[in-house]
């Protein structure tokens, strides 16, 4: 069975190391990589009627922008290295959504980068913390 990795990217440089890591692994075992970006969004916010009217349109624009600017470059970088890669973009709570995408696509394991180990992140929890707590399959955190 082919190994499938799901890597969470957010456009910052910390996931560069995670990308390098997954590129190496996927090349070794000719695995597949799903490059996922989650747009932070909550259904429990308040909005005006005018915002609601254009929400569908804005959602499409947000997805398009994320596909082009965040996920696209990483997918291309992996494909250029000969790795089978595909992009995913979704709205939602970042940790929960990454875990859900991993389950939905039945991936072998999740790969996420971690920003510096600041005290603030220890206090409030980073995306890496959330994923580790929620995940239902192996997860690799690349520091």
């Amino acid at each position: 069975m082919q190994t499938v990795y799901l890597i969470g990217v957010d456009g910052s440089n910390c996931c560069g190391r995670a990308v390098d890591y997954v590129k190496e692994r996927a090349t070794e075992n000719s695995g597949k990589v799903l490059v996922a970006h989650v747009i932070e969004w909550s259904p429990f916010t308040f909005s005006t009627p005018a915002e609601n009217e254009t929400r569908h349109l804005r959602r499409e624009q947000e997805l398009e922008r994320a596909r082009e600017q965040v996920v696209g470059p990483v997918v291309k970088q992996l494909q250029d290295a000969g790795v089978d890669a595909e992009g995913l973009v979704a709205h939602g709570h970042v940790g929960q959504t990454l875990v859900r995408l991993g389950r939905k696509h039945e991936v072998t394991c999740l790969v996420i980068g971690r920003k510096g180990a600041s005290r603030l992140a220890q206090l409030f929890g980073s995306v890496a913390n959330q994923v580790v707590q929620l995940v239902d399959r192996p997860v690799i955190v690349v520091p």
Partner: protein
Amino acid sequence: MPTVREYRYRLTALLLLLMTSAPALAQESIDAKIDNIVRPAADWVSSIIFWSFPLAGQQVPFVLVWLIAAAAVFTLYFRFINIRALGHGFKLVRGDYDDPDAAGEVSHFQALTTALSGTVGLGNIAGVAIAVSIGGPGATFWMILAGFLGMSSKFTECTLGVKYRNENPDGTVSGGPMYYLSRGLAEKGPGFAKLGKVLAVLFAIFCVGGSFGGGNMFQANQSFSQLLNVTGGEASWLYGKGWLFGLIVAAAVGLVVIGGIRSIASVTSKIVPFMGIVYVLAGLVIIFANLSAVPAAFAAIFEGAFAPQGIAGGIIGVLLQGVQRAAFSNEAGVGSAAIAHSAVRTSRPVTEGLVALYEPFVDTIVVCTITALVIIITGTWDPGVDPSAGVQLTSDAFESAISWFPWVLTLAVVLFAFSTMISWSYYGLKSWTFLFGESKVTDATYKILFLIFVVIGSSMQLGAVINFSDAMIFAMAFPNLLGCYFLMPVVKRELNEYWADLKAGRLIKAVDR
């Protein structure tokens, strides 16, 4: 051709010009002048809409019978949907049945709270005070009952709003009674198509009127009245300067609707729910502090509802006050909320109707009841109270328990009024463009008119404003509910299919996806 941006600048400049030149026009009493001009027209309009017939020695406005009858019919026709679907409605609001792949679209919660911010407002604070001061404590009972039945009207209109909304080529959505009246009735046959068009146009005209009346002038008027109260009443430097307050509010509204400054609107949309919670909590604190007075208050409410003492018109008079203020506050049957609810993205229109059940529930059964209880248990109400007091009565009631609360209430009132105006300017604009087509000119014309009415509203006497506001908002119920009667079998079909799926476990929960 001017670009949109240039256009906005010009409008903003015009607005500033209006603002700076107005004080120069301020002779002894601008307020009285505006009141004199507008009052006869306002009174004439309301005398038509509130055509009434005598019953048990009391003049009963036909429109109230129309509203409450429809609410009762829908409640029976959908077999007490307002009770049996409350649990499921709550799960929908909580997002239990959301498709995670559709995340990022307008959620049920957002559609509900957006619609609520258009209805929770002065109707809950000033309207209830008016009902209690004219109809006595018993009006509360009829208000709650009307709110309860009104849930079924909301269910019907919001389901239709989503089902027949228009998805524009640019990806935006427009919905509401004008669309379900014209498109829904057209499905029924060529004769109905003509009727639907007439009803849709009538609705749109009244909705534009309502957006100038209850959605605008009433709000401006009552928030100014409250501001005047806390700053010292007739001794206040603001006394007789309603036009000035109107200009400031108009400028703020103008920045949002013409200037396109979203940040003001989105800040308000976040503060308003917070203020609502503060209001409810303060009410609960007062109620709990006077817990021993609560049984007596409920006794007064029941006694006043069925055997009122010293109220003009007796039981019918009390009932009318309760029903009228409930309808004005939660707008069930009026059709306005269907415009706000139709933005939700769902494959099952019924789900939005079920969510909308919570609107009259929160608005009338929770918030209005709290206001009424506070007025009654603090003893602020007595049979001799001035019936034109409006918001002042509520303010006095809260003040008697929490001395600094009128200031908080003032802030809440102004913010509620502002958010209600933003919502209604949207409802009105949607109706306006339905009538006149979408273009920059029609858009701007409506918005300028809307701002002018803000100033007029804060300058007029309460009586004339209330009559006109009520008249326009209630007028919307005629075409809307007539259409809903014709279309209720459609809603029933949708509901039965959905309910069968729900009972058979064919609906996938979010956690199982």
